[in-house]
């Protein structure tokens, strides 16, 4: 990996350490979920983003409370970074009353408007028109708040992607379209679903810029995001940032991912965003053994607490199955 040397948007040491904490927390959260699925404690609905954490951390870091995010199904970390308590997210995965859905659906199908989080359906790309609507309200109000909308390279083949990005381009909406290109739409590799190399190229047809970057480099993602945010906040419209990355686990936890080779997985694991960033922080004396130990301890404590809370939380009452259909 080339050395990371992008300094336009400065980060103080404590900010870098905070980024590191988020990377570790999000990784550990997903790893714990994976174990909980194997133990049968979490039933289903787990789509980990292990290997892709740098995208969430690099894009969510430093967002305002008023900014909105429209995460996709692997972006549990985005919920945490935007302010949902780990206990609540873990409860959501356990389908408990203390979760966002009160047990009605799994992780990312729920949102929190007060925190600027939209929760999508399972229809990939269907969050993008909603993001356009959120962005349109910012335009009406003439504020400089921004929407950050996530999608996979697979979802860029869905009609909603085209309709939403086209409208965003026409209206010059303050939206960052973040593509998490993890190489596979479930089992279908990118070369079977697109006749181009870069999703970023699609932006040109909507009249705004698209860039393709290393999605496993948290600082590269952060720098690209900050540049696009500044443009969006100043009224210069949307940007598409394609983050090339790789999904370590299968599509969901039950998917053994036999459609890819061990060599390919090993190659991408060698590009793990966390050791890369660790090396960077150590070389600059931002991170040492003591700080690392402290952060790892905080991560473990947070997740242990969230799991214990979720396990002890109450199951929903049966009548809840037919409630909250209408306001």
């Amino acid at each position: 990996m080339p050395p990371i040397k992008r300094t336009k948007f400065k980060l103080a040491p404590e900010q870098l350490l905070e980024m590191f904490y988020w990377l570790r927390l999000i990784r550990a959260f997903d790893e714990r979920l994976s174990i909980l699925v194997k133990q049968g404690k979490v039933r289903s609905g787990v789509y980990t983003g292990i290997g892709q954490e740098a995208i969430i951390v690099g894009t969510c870091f430093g967002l305002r409370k008023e900014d909105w995010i429209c995460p996709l199904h692997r972006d549990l970390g985005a919920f945490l970074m935007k302010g949902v308590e780990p206990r609540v997210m873990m409860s959501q995965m356990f389908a408990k009353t203390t979760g966002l859905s009160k047990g009605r659906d799994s992780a990312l199908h729920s949102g929190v408007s007060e925190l600027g989080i939209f929760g999508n359906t399972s229809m990939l790309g269907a969050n993008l028109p909603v993001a356009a609507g959120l962005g349109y309200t910012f335009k009406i109000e003439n504020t400089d708040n921004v929407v950050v909308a996530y999608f996979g390279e697979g979802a860029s083949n869905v009609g909603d992607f085209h309709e939403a990005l086209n409208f965003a381009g026409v209206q010059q909406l303050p939206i960052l379209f973040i593509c998490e290109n993890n190489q596979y739409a479930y089992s279908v590799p990118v070369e079977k679903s697109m006749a181009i190399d870069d999703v970023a190229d699609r932006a040109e047809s909507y009249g705004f810029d698209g860039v393709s970057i290393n999605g496993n480099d948290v600082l590269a993602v952060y720098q690209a995001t900050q540049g696009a945010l500044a443009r969006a906040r100043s009224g210069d419209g949307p940007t598409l940032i394609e983050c090339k990355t790789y999904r370590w686990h299968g599509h969901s936890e039950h998917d053994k991912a036999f459609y890819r080779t061990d060599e390919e997985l090993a190659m991408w694991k060698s590009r793990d965003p966390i050791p890369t960033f660790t090396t960077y922080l150590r070389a600059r004396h931002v991170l040492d053994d003591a700080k690392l130990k402290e952060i790892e301890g905080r991560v473990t404590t947070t997740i242990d607490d969230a799991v214990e809370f979720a396990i002890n939380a109450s199951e929903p009452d049966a009548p809840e199955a037919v409630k909250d259909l209408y306001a």
Partner: protein
Amino acid sequence: MPKELTYLEAIREALAEEMRRDPKVFVLGEDVGVYGGAFGATQGLFDEFGEMRVVDTPISESAIIGISIGAALRGYRPVAEMQFADFISCGFDQIVNQAATLRYRYGGRASVPIVVRAPSGGGVSGGLYHSQNPEAWFVHRPGLKVVAPSTAYDAKGLLKAAIRDENPVVYFEHKYLYRRAKGPVPEGDEIVPIGVAATRRDGHDATILTYGAMVTPSLEAADAMAKEGVEVEVIDLRSLLPFDKDAIFKSVDKTSRVLVVHEDVKTLGIGAELSAVIMEERFDALDAPVLRVTYPDTHAPFSHVLEQANLPNTARIVDGLRTLAAY
């Protein structure tokens, strides 16, 4: 003498009044701006409210609905126009999966106050894709409300109610009635509440349950039967989801005979549900099976001859009533 408006003018007046009353109301759709809508429903709104609140969109039905949902989550009350109800299938996912489920999967912490206006119905030689009556698709989806006015009064009153409702409402406006239905309209803050039927004609021998453009031929058929000594009660459902069970059962208890008349096709149309509910809950009150006069299970042909062969009309409703009365 109170002022009289056409059904189409009533829709326009409802939109304008609600936009004046509440700055969060805006309209969007294809050709709704400068052009004033394919049928003229939004004429004058662009000049009065400007392009930010009267939004000409690309041909993107899914995005039109999705944008509405996003705006609704930020406190706006969008009114989306489908140019023809037939085109609503292109926005189906956003309505049935995104809007209808949102409150449920958010644990009751958010709602989606959008209105989707859908010009529906035949009798205008519109052919296969400008004549459809797709209301049953949406009545089948919990979380939505569905209305279908038959008079200018209800067109205005129900649209105002739909805009003020906290839930997603699909508003079927019948194209055949646009300029043919004319009458007084509610003034000021008066609305027509969703979920309340209207008895258009009293009778004690049989009940017709109908809505939309079938109300007028149903009334004509009732008048014809009156000459034969059969007094038919005609109930205009106005709201299809929820439908007014109390009004229906009250009439069934009185007449013991029910004919459902709708322009939608027969199989699994609204009539199927009404018939089932009446059998489940009022079996003892019935002296005859619930009968239906509907469009046959076919498409809407372009030829005037073929279309008229399909459309329910006064003579067919009279036939249905005679069969019903003979039991």
